Every structure is written in structure tokens, then in C-alpha cells.
């Protein structure tokens, strides 16, 4: 059964006008040549009629451009798939009731911002009492023992602490990344778990501004949560999967 083809393009003020905005820096001085170079670059990206609406000098060697134009590309929305966390998100109280009903002892969740990442805002938002944007963190959940190790935790230390605290769930946050170091770091944690034959022992979840569920699955994690996901999303997923896997269940 084939679905009806539905082609789409970006929308400015008329359907299918394909209007988009770009901004970027070029490693050349800001002058007429620079503007032409910016236009040519946009054209090569598949943008028709690029207009350099703003340009400014960043130094003798760098210049900045804002470009508007029309994209010649279109996509069939039927070709787009999303890998999403399948468990249904429950509210904090529902998660607590679910734990009470299904598990014989508290669930231990350990979390850290790992590698060189010193930013703890992400892991704090999920784990700390206060939570984020009005959603309480895991520390406040009945039936959950939450341990937040903070920032710049080495993968080896995280595993060691997870074993020490007999954790059921490991949360890893990666907030600010540079040159995709987060991918390398996340990959090496899974490799470490596998090398130590510990992968099956834990539910491992990652989160961060540039994380999504698809990436998490690809890297060998159980789930990934990006922006606008809160403690209850993470908790719902963790308890649902633990029940499925019969970990600590009554």
C-alpha cells in the first residue's frame, strides 16, 4: 500500500517558496569579493537567488554573512522516519505508583556528565531535587535512589561507581561538545561496558542538547533524550524497561 507522495519545502510566506536563512563565516576579508564568495557558496548548497543581506568584518582575515535564498530541494515526507522512545511517558506520581506496584526494592540510578564535559546543567536538570522547568528531578522520586556524580567523570570511574552503588540505570549527559568529542566518549563507554562484560547489567541512557534516541540506539545505548525531555521521561523509560527485563520485579 503506497502512501500519497507529499513533497515539502521550507515555507517563508507562500507554500513551497523554499525560503531559508543561513549565516556563516568565511576565512577571507570582508569586501565585494567576500560577498560574491558567500553567494557562490550558497548557490553550491542548492540555494537559488542567494541574497547577502548582511556582511561584516570579524578581523582582517575573517568575514561574516547572513544569506537568504530559495532552496531548490524538496523531500517526500513519507521518506522521513524518526526513531523515538516507545514507552509511554508517565507523570512523577504515576512513575512512583508503578515502582511501588512492580518492584521489590528501590531503583538505583547513577548519573554523570562524562569525559571532558564540565557542564552539569543537563544531568542536574534530570537528577537534582529541583529539576528543571517545573519538573522535579529524580532525587525527589519515591522509590528511586538517585546518585549524581557531577561533571568531568571518567568513563572508568562511572562504571566503578555504578558497580559500587549496585546501580540499575546509568545516565550519561553530554552538554557542550566540540568537534564531536561526545560521540567518541559515548562510544568508548559502551566499549568499556562490553570489555568488562557489564553491558547487560545496566540500563544505559544518554542525554544532551545534541543527543536523540536514534543516535543512542546507533551507539548501543538503550535510549537517548534530547532537549525538552525531563526527569519523568527518563524515569518512565527506565522503569518500563526494567519491568520488561524483569529486573528487581516483584
Amino acid at each position: 500500500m503506497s502512501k500519497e507522495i507529499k513533497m515539502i519545502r521550507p515555507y517563508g510566506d507562500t507554500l513551497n517558496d523554499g525560503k531559508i536563512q543561513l549565516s556563516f563565516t568565511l576565512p577571507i576579508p570582508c569586501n565585494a569579493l567576500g560577498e560574491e564568495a558567500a553567494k557562490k557558496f550558497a548557490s553550491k548548497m542548492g540555494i537559488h537567488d542567494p541574497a547577502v543581506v548582511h556582511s561584516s568584518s570579524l578581523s582582517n582575515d575573517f568575514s561574516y554573512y547572513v544569506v537568504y535564498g530559495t532552496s531548490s530541494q524538496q523531500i517526500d515526507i513519507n521518506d522521513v522516519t524518526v526513531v523515538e522512545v516507545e514507552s509511554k511517558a508517565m507523570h512523577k506520581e504515576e512513575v512512583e505508583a508503578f515502582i511501588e506496584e512492580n518492584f521489590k526494592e528501590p531503583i538505583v540510578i547513577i548519573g554523570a556528565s562524562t569525559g571532558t564535559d564540565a557542564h552539569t546543567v543537563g544531568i542536574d536538570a534530570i537528577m537534582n531535587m529541583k529539576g528543571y522547568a517545573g519538573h522535579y528531578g529524580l532525587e525527589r522520586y519515591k522509590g528511586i535512589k538517585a546518585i549524581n556524580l557531577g561533571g568531568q567523570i571518567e568513563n572508568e570511574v562511572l562504571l566503578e561507581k555504578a558497580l559500587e552503588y549496585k546501580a540499575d540505570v546509568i545516565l550519561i549527559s553530554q552538554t557542550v561538545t566540540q568537534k564531536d568529542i561526545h560521540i567518541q566518549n559515548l562510544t568508548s563507554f559502551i566499549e568499556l561496558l562490553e570489555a568488562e562484560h557489564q553491558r547487560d547489567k545496566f540500563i544505559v541512557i544518554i542525554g544532551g542538547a545534541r543527543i536523540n534516541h536514534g543516535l543512542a540506539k546507533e551507539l548501543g545505548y538503550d535510549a537517548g533524550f534530547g532537549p525538552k525531555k525531563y526527569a519523568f521521561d527518563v524515569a518512565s523509560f527506565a522503569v518500563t524497561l526494567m519491568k520488561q527485563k524483569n529486573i528487581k520485579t516483584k
Partner: protein
Amino acid sequence: MSKLNLNKNIIQECRMDARVIATDIQSFIDLYTTVSVERSVLRLLGVDGVNDFNVPMVNVVVDHIQSKGNLAKGVSHYMSYAMYDLMKTPQEIAELVSKKKLDLSVYKDKERSPYLELLTPHFEKVLCRIEEMTKTRNDWLKKVEHKSTPSKYVIVATGNIYEDIKQAVSAAKKGADIIAVIRSTGQSLLDFVPFGATTEGFGGTFATQENFRLMRKALDEVSLEENRYIKLVNYASGLCMPEIVAMGAIERLDMMLNDSLYGIIFRDINMKRTLIDQYFSRVLSSYAEIIINTGEDNYLTTSDAFDHAHTVLASQFINEQFAKKALMDESLMGLGHAYEIDPNMENSFLYELAQAEMAREIFPNHPLKYMPPTKHMTGDIFKGTVQNALFNIAAVTSKQSIHLLGMMTEAIHTPFISDRALALDNAAYIEKAFKNFGDEISYKPDGIIMYRAHQVLTHAHALLSEIKQEGLFKTLEKGTFAGISRHENSGKGLSGVYLKDSSYQNPIMQHMIMRLKVKNHV
């Protein structure tokens, strides 16, 4: 002129309580030294370079004394005896130790060294260079125009010093007054300072003396072109805090991040180690006229900025008193605070302005360091620009001194060259548009802003009197700051702390303290 009508008696009591807290700790600090303090002494005696395994000479010597001798006597003890016996310079002695041709432990049981004057010409040479650097800076500052609005501070963090230079030069050309090179994130926990120019770091660039020199040179060039003096900042924190100040003083860094509590709370560095190290660091900063930046903003990235605003003020009072113990002039105390209240909160701007005006009023002579929104920045860069604009308005209105500009891509990546340029444009526009706004407005008596400032001060006062009762170590154990608990005898770097032997001597420290006392008419 008081805009907030704060209770002067309460402010005075806060200062007195903070002084008691600092005095209590200072009596402890005076009894101890650390491996990093001793390595700094060696650096100030002119010991430099690395051995064949890239271990800094200062580490070679201190490790040698630690393992074979007794570091509690201080490196000056061993050095002065060896110099007397061998008629060699400190650098030559370090090299002999490195080649295992000299064992300093033969002086382990010797009495208090009578040969300290042999060290004098060596440290005077280095201190002379530091004084020249201070003079160069002061000459620059006299020559260029001094503006009344906040100094724009931006960070570079590519990991590669040569790439950092391109970004720093661009920022300077776009109006930045201060450039901070963020360190590679692992560095605070290294118990040595890497050597030479570096091109690989994550989330930042290694702080090395050569990197300092390269960046200072580039900024001097752009300062000449722009006819403004561009200040350079690095991080005197972590396990090598005092050594980094020594290197920074030699290479004319103008500011250093140097908090008395940050390493303890956020890097789990042992509290004794940090407090002893910060004292030496601050004496040296005072001597070299380096502005310190304290890190109170960090509390608010972990704790809620509205509920815990008073912990920031309490910490500012404590940092101020620790700096005074190090004979630091108020003009060098860049006390930190931040714009971190949840933007979804009604009247958040009013509360931010209250905090910023309050800090300005309580610390009138201090170059306050004001940090931008970070916790509530999202991938919405357009909203982020507005958040930063509000922060900039608060900074200019309340006349902050060191204005660390927010990046619209704060939650995404270390700044691109264009992110920084846009932030500078944003700040420059507001600087111009709001130039005298703060002079024109007064706040409504018993209005939201005045009430909030009064409330934060009252809470800080209560907290300080509690800390005074319990002592700082106990307070840190309780997790009062940022909700993180630390213990007196845990954390990194504890094994590098030594109770001074009765024969311990540190002539460089003494010399600096004496000079500072003369200068400050103490």
C-alpha cells in the same frame, strides 16, 4: 550615593563575620605548605624547563624531596644548602637532581638554613621581571582612554593556541577588552603544568607559559593597532593554582580566575590544599597587580539562582576577606556573580537587577565580574540573543566592571568566531544606548527591587553568622554552597599538603608580604 538604601550596619556585620571566618582559616593556612606552593617557589627562583620525559623541572625537584627528603622544610631549605655547597644556580641544581647526579636528601636533617641570602639574587631577578610587566601594563593603562562602561570579556576555547590567537584577534577588533583562554577541561586536576605551545585540548587550550607568551604577544600587537590595551586572562585554579599565577605574572597576564572555594566544591580538590594554595596565589597576584576573578556564578548553575542568591553574596564577602589576608587591594578583587534566574519567572529582570545593584553598592571599589545566562540558555539562539540583551542591560545599568558576554550558542558548542562577534555587537549597542541610564533612574522605596536586595542581604547575613559559628570546613561539609558536600580529609591533592617543620622558610613569600605591607602602609 545609595540607590537601594541597604542597611549599612548589616553590611558591616557581614564583613566582620567574614573576617572571623577567614581569620580562623588563615591561622590554619599559615601552618602549612603544599607541593604546588613549593613548585611556585622554584619557578620564582628561575627554575624552568622539562626533563627527557616532559616532566617539569619544578616537579622533578619537589618529587625528589618528597620521596627522599622532607618537604615540610620547604624547597628553600634544600636549595640554599645545595647552592652554598656547590656554588651553582637553582636551575643547575634542578638539572643535577634530574640527572640523578645530586641527592638533596643529604640536607634533610640539617638545621634551619643560614644560607637563604643566596636565593635572593635569583628570586629578585624574577620578581624584577614581574615588576617590569606590571609597569608595562600600568603604562599602557595610563596611555589609553578609560571608559566608564563595563569591560567586554569574551572567551576563546579552540584547544589550539594558534587558532585561539585568530579568534582573539578577531574579538579584539570587534571591541572585546578582555580575552580569556579557557583551559582544556582536564587541566585543573593535573598536578603539573604542561610545557610549550600546545595545539590539542578539549573544551579549551592548555595553560602553559609558552601559550601565555604567544597570546600576550598577539594581543600586544592588536592593542597597538586598536590603541586599547587588551587584557589577557587565564585560570589560576585547580591543583597548580599558585604555579599558574607565577607563570601568568611573568608573562603579563592581567587577570586570573582564582576562587577560594571553587576547586573544593566543583573539582573535589581537598579543601586544605585549595585554601593554602589560594593564599600563596593571592599574595603573588597582589604583588603582580593581577586582578582575580572569583567564581560565585558557578553556585547558580547548580543551585537555583533565585533561592540561593544569598550564598553568592556570602561567598563574595568571604572571598573579599581572604583576598585582604593576602594584602590585596580592593581594585584587584573581581568578585563574581551571575544572571541565572529562570527566564520564565515573572519579574526575573527586576530580581537580577536587584542582585547586580546590590553587589555594586556593597563592593563599590571592586571590579565586579558579572557572568551571563548559561543554565537557562537553550538551542533557541534567537531567544538566547534576547536573554543576553537583558543581561547586558543589567550589566550597563548597574555599572558592572568585568562583563563576560553571553553567547547565543551557549548550550550548543564552544563559540564560533561569529557567535562571539554577534555577542560583541549586542553588548556594544546596549553599552551605547543605556550609557547613562543607571545615573538617571532611582528605585521605588519598598518596591520589588529594593525589597529583594534587602532580603538577599539579610539572608546572607544570617548565613555568614552561621558559618562563623560552625567554621568554614564544617560549612563545606554541610553542602551549603551549590548543594555539594565536601570533607576536610578527602578530595584530590591532600597528599601534597605538609605541616611546616620548625625549620621551614619561604623567603620569597616573606619578601612579597613585606613589600606589600610597605605599599599598603600596613
